């Protein structure tokens, strides 16, 4: 059953079609990958789902209900959380405060401060940052900042998590760990929709993959189908 559906999703920047008439769906409980060359419209699609940008035409539905047209905070409270390609954390706030903020504001039902703090502690343990909860977020290394961003997004109790290039800029070992983290998030019952450039990572963890090129969907399917698709190889390697 699809948790997220897009029909005819379109966005123009001036005359350029950043995302053009894309139909897609993400099934409940799966890890759905989104790949494509630079400028293909991947992040734009995420921005449309999370309402950072408004759709030109088309409709996006979450659990069967239309969410396009809502404000970002409303979408978050409905159960769709996201991370950003360039890490967006609150640098001068403590690590624990970062996560608490998500729990205090982003959950569908309001949460008391002690519960939010408990939730934050649990999630920091989950991503492996327990020891740093009183450090300032800006003091963390890149990989830890990415983990923090994931923990903060998870604090909003999402049913669907959008991960925008979680593994960009990480070392091979860190990438391995990030892949494990993605799988363990799914094991908590959270559906994942992820953009990734690291092919090994995306082929390894995704159940299904969609390929965008110049804003259009050119392929969709299981990892092995994508990796052998002639069209996809042409786009990535040239003819």
């Amino acid at each position, binding site marked *: 059953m699809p948790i997220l559906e897009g029909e005819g999703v379109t966005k123009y920047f001036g005359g350029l079609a950043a995302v053009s008439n894309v139909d897609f769906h993400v099934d409940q409980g799966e890890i759905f990958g989104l790949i494509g060359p630079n400028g293909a419209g991947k992040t734009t699609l995420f921005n449309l789902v*999370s309402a*950072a940008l408004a759709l030109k035409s088309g409709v996006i539905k979450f659990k069967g209900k239309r969410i396009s047209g809502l*404000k*970002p*905070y409303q979408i*978050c*409270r409905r159960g769709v*959380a*996201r991370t*950003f390609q360039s890490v*967006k*954390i*609150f*640098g*001068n*706030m403590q690590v624990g*405060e970062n996560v*608490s*903020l*998500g729990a*205090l*504001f*982003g*959950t569908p039902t309001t949460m008391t*401060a002690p519960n*939010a703090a408990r939730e934050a502690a649990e999630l920091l343990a989950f991503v492996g940052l327990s*020891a*740093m909860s*009183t*450090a*300032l977020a800006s*003091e*963390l*290394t890149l990989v*830890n900042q990415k983990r923090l961003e994931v923990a*903060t*997004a998870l*604090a*909003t109790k999402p049913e669907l998590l959008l991960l925008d290039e979680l593994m960009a800029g990480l070392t091979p070992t860190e990438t391995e760990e990030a892949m494990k983290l993605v799988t363990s998030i799914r094991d908590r019952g959270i559906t994942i929709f992820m953009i990734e450039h690291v092919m090994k990572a995306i082929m390894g963890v995704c159940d299904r993959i969609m390929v965008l090129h110049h804003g259009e969907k050119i392929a969709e399917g299981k990892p092995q189908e994508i990796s052998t698709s002639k069209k996809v190889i042409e786009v990535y390697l040239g003819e």
Partner: protein
Amino acid sequence: MDIIYNILKNTRFWWIISLILLVLLATLPLYSSAYSVILITAIIMYVILTVSWAMFSGPTGYISLATAAFFGVGIYTMAVLGEQLPLLPAVIAGGLVSFIIALIVGAMTLRLRGIYFTIFTFGLVELIKHLLLYWEVTVTGTRGRFIVLEENTTIFWVILGIFVVLMLTNYFIRRSKYGLALRSIGENEEASAHLGVNVNLVKVFAFGISAFFMGAAGAIMATRWTYVDPYVAFNPLFSFLPVLMAIFGGMGQIYGPVIGAVFFAYTEEKLLTNFPEYFMLTFGIILVLFIVYLPDGLVGVVQRLWRRRLGGQNANT
């Protein structure tokens, strides 16, 4: 030594100190000269403007220059309603009118960021001033207004009351989840919105609450000045001084703007009375030195010493 540091770290200790200071202040008119009462009234006025400015602009990073606008709205509310209403309701009305104007202006302008927001808020001071001037000249046919005079001690107690309510409000907002939300907006507004914070609502309300106290301060101060016209009421200096005072004191802690405003207003008064010719020159030099050598303000100095004493607590990243 350690005992002293433990006491200094105790919140209850600071509550008791605050209470003692408050009692000393509240009883001031009973044992002190009229001059001190007037001086301290002026200092508290600056503290209110600075703290209420820092309450919104400090965490969010939206540098507002609308302080003079809300202060002036409070002054004019008192000028218009002062004769019909008793003092306290008129003061509260001054705050409420400013609050409502701030909500309207906030809803229109908080989409602007950085320098655009700052310039707009400053434009607001001029806009209200000239609208009022136009109205007074063409409709009411006056230029200035007389205001019912109040006793100096009454003014002092009312302004002290506003100060106490402001500090409590500020303290509880900072500790609440909305304080956290305001800081997150200052750090990264986009991320904050995607984590479920209704950023526009939080910003507009915080802007409104800070304007309430500016307006209330204007309303009570108006009763000291007997005569106002739009140029007096909407003096742009009241927009700039709170910013300077907050920087002077340091914005990181709740007491920073208070210390900054007290120090600043007192120095201003002393320099003005003792060296009237060199007042502005001396003042300018002190300000420049502060911004160059103490960018975190007076409180920053204290905190640096404090941290050196406590050692690095957050070394493990």
